[in-house]
């Protein structure tokens, strides 16, 4: 109930700023105690870089992502279809529109809001040159998701998840590895229909997560859950298309802004 209130309150206050504007600069992977905090001055001395990073935060929909999808698109891609009643998760009841012939139907109005917020956040992370990792354990779409990640210039992990990939990263990869700044789940369940280990690990490592939750998934540990179908082909293709377009838009915008403010600061 508190959850619902807060969520409704946020857009109404007009602060439709993404919930973690400075997550990359503030809370991500804080390891030090108070003594270990160091103040590091900004890497670029010009005012331009400041403007580049703060300008998008002043607009609710800086990247105009609401144009990318409509309710009809979601309906045509069969995003509203959930699983049968027996598979329903207790915490997903708030996202259900109803149930027809023992099959759960997700509320597409809520899906629209959640998807808008999730895409907006992804765009901001991509704008700030964050690492985005796509995770899904649905073998049907492994190739599709990996190709999409490669086209965006981001990363994908649709294979067997080894235990310490996030929590034991220094041992697994090498010293000084940079962990993903955002993890996007195109299916939060693994092959045994249990919650994917990465959801819990990301929460442990303070990495924000965006996830498509179906009616049999647990949305609690995700920062931006998006209720939707994760099993149909058209649905997953739609998500892939949307994420690819948001990330490309965000990166193009970043380049534009750099040129714009770079020129301005040179002129000044």
């Amino acid at each position, binding site marked *: 109930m*508190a*959850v619902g209130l*807060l969520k409704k309150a*946020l857009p109404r206050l007009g*602060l439709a700023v993404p*919930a*973690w*504007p*400075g997550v*990359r*600069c*503030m*809370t*991500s*992977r*804080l*390891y*030090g*105690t108070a003594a*270990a*905090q*160091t*103040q*590091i*001055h*900004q*890497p670029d001395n010009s005012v331009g870089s*400041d403007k580049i990073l*703060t300008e998008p*935060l002043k607009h609710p929909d800086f990247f105009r992502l609401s144009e990318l999808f409509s309710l009809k698109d979601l309906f045509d891609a069969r995003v509203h279809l959930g699983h049968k009643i027996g598979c329903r998760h207790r*915490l997903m009841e708030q996202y259900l529109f109803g149930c027809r012939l023992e099959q759960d139907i997700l509320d597409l109005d809520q899906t629209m809001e959640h998807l808008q917020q999730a895409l907006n956040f992804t765009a901001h992370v991509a704008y*700030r*040159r964050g*690492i985005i*990792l796509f995770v899904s354990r649905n073998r049907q779409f492994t190739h599709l998701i*990996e190709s999409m*990640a*490669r086209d965006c*210039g*981001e*990363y*994908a*992990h649709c*294979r067997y998840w*080894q235990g310490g*990939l996030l929590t034991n990263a*220094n041992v*697994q*990869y*090498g*010293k*000084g*590895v*940079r962990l*993903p700044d955002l993890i996007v789940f195109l299916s939060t369940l693994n092959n045994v229909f249990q919650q994917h280990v990465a959801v819990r690990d990301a929460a442990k490592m*303070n990495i924000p997560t965006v996830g498509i939750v179906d009616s049999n998934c*647990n949305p*609690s*540990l995700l*920062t931006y859950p998006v209720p939707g179908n994760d099993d149909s082909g058209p649905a997953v293709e739609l998500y892939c298309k949307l994420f690819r377009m948001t990330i490309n838009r965000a990166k193009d915008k970043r380049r534009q802004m750099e040129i714009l403010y770079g020129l301005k600061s040179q002129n000044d």
Partner: protein
Amino acid sequence: MSKMAASSGRALKSFVQGCCGCSSVILPSIARNVILQKPAVTVLARLVCTSSTLQRKNIAAAGPEKYTQEFIKKQIEEFNIGKRHLANMMGEDPETFTQEGIDRAIAYLFPSGLFEKRARPVMKHPDEIFPKQRAVQWGEDGRPFHFLFYTGKQSYYSLMHCLRFIQLLERILALPYCSIEEEYIQRFRRALEVQSKKQKIEPLQYDENEVAFSIGEGRRKTATATATVRDNGSGNITVNGVDYLLYFPVLQDREQLMFPFQFLDRLGKHDMECKVTGGGRSAQAGAIRLATARALLSFITENEVESMRQAGLLTPDPRVKERQKPGQEGARRKFTWNKR
């Protein structure tokens, strides 16, 4: 409990809403430190608290120090200079001084009576001495180069993105000008030895009446058989001078005799005469089967030889009677277990 965690997360979000002033960028090399720049609102940050002693312990457990690129470069420079010094000492030309020359020089200048060759003084190029390390997989900004880096096995999983890898390779080799890329593709192939070429096929022999015949030998368990297969026959089979119907009253044994002919569709076309000793009923049948199959090799094409090999007609059966062990009644059977 999960709901509480979720609600506290939402509460944090509302706190952070007002903070728009944070504009610094994380430097990947300082992943452990906090980088804060004038937060507009005091934020209840979630700190993962580690004490300094813990940090020290982690560093100690990290492992041996890895060699940096600069260190190896310096070593290579020193090696080259040392090589020139050696050449001058030995009176040879520094430009054309090879590794063998270095070895000889070291053996001359530092004579060692140690027996273990690896313990003697050695001067080699640093690349051979220092173990190779994996190149760093990410760029200056910390972003890994390969899009599948986070899986751990990037080269293995990226194979499937080479557009139907194996089909493509096969197609390339089928094209007329394939010799250009053939070498590259052969690297991915392991040559399977063609098994059928190992079969010794005896040439056909001819009788007085110009009838072709061939002889084959076979063994199974303790039985040995020699079979003579003649051409232009009508399917008569004689075993030890007796008709096969009388020698093998059981249908199963006669089927074994006929299997090679039936496989090659030559049931009524050959005559067979064989001698068999040793073994029991079915051992003799198996031995004759192997012998006829080997004899028939001379009459058929290579493809048929390969198919016979794959059917198992040409493989001698290695099973023999297992020996009895002491303390047991038979090979596997133990004595009756008595409680008292």
